[in-house]
């Protein structure tokens, strides 16, 4: 699968795939919004505030997943010297950062009617904020360290250190007493939410995955072009 993301392959690809993905994403978003805002029922305790879940949960899952990718790419880059994976990680970082911010803001908007507070310094919320700062540091280093090799090494170190924060976020609700509820969807067991809520959640997650793919493909191609043009200018 990694073969598809080889720089030569991406550079020679046309924009048809991106255009088709945009169309598909819009279609799925419309269906997802109809489900999330009209068809899904309110929660018996939380009422209609539960609808925030349809943007909060997918954004949280993706921000964690993307930093997981950045961490693995950083290891591949530092240990196995596979350079193009760090370009992939660099392209994916702003998407993960936006999703981390969305997760924090929508979580706060969900917290107020549910817990009565906008923010508490509990383990889940704080570790999520730490993840957001890891994303910011990662992006900042790529933008402000001019030497590519140096930026590549520094960002890889940040990627690997940030990887240790992911299990803390995931298991914070089990390890400590927190206001945040435990996960309703896990990879190892059946979801504990009803299908009428699970369906719109999966649809919104799919839309956000396609959105991420579109942004990633555009940013990745830009990064490859930057390197190719810089190389040509140096040779001239």
């Amino acid at each position, binding site marked *: 699968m990694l073969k598809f993301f080889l720089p030569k392959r991406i*550079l020679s690809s046309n924009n048809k795939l991106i255009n088709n993905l945009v169309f598909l994403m819009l279609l799925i978003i419309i269906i997802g*919004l109809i489900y999330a*805002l*009209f068809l899904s029922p*309110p929660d018996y305790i939380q*009422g*209609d*505030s539960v*609808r*925030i879940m349809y*943007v*909060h949960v997918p*954004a949280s899952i993706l921000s964690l997943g993307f930093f997981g990718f950045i961490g693995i790419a950083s290891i591949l880059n530092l240990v196995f010297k596979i350079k193009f994976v760090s370009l992939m990680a660099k392209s994916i970082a*702003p*998407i993960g950062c*936006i999703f981390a*911010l*969305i997760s924090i*803001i*929508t979580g706060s*908007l*969900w917290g*107020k*009617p549910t817990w009565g507070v906008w923010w508490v310094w509990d383990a889940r919320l704080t570790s999520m904020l730490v993840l957001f700062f890891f994303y910011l540091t990662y992006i900042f280093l790529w933008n402000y360290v001019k030497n590519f090799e140096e930026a590549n090494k520094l960002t890889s170190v940040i990627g690997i250190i940030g990887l240790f924060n992911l299990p803390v976020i995931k298991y914070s609700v089990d390890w400590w007493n927190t206001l945040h509820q435990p996960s309703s969807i896990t990879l190892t067991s059946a979801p504990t939410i009803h299908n009428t809520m699970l369906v719109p959640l999966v649809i919104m997650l799919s839309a956000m995955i396609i*959105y991420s793919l*579109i*942004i990633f493909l*555009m*940013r990745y*191609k*830009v990064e490859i*072009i*930057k390197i*190719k*043009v810089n190389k*040509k200018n140096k040779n001239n």
Partner: protein
Amino acid sequence: MDLEFLFLNGYGQFVWPAFIFTFFSCFVLYAKTYKKFKKYEKLYLNEYQQNQDVKIEDFDLRKSLSKSPIF
């Protein structure tokens, strides 16, 4: 007009900003990325247009030669 849908039983003030913030921030990132993408795509095409022209010309020449009655 029934505004109950907008109020969402009193939770509208939390639900709508959450959705609006999500879509607005996603749109801003998309717009910024798209602008940058188009700029670099244009730059790439300008830088490598010459080489592509040569290749296309060569290809057309070979094609036309192969179709000529002499070959």
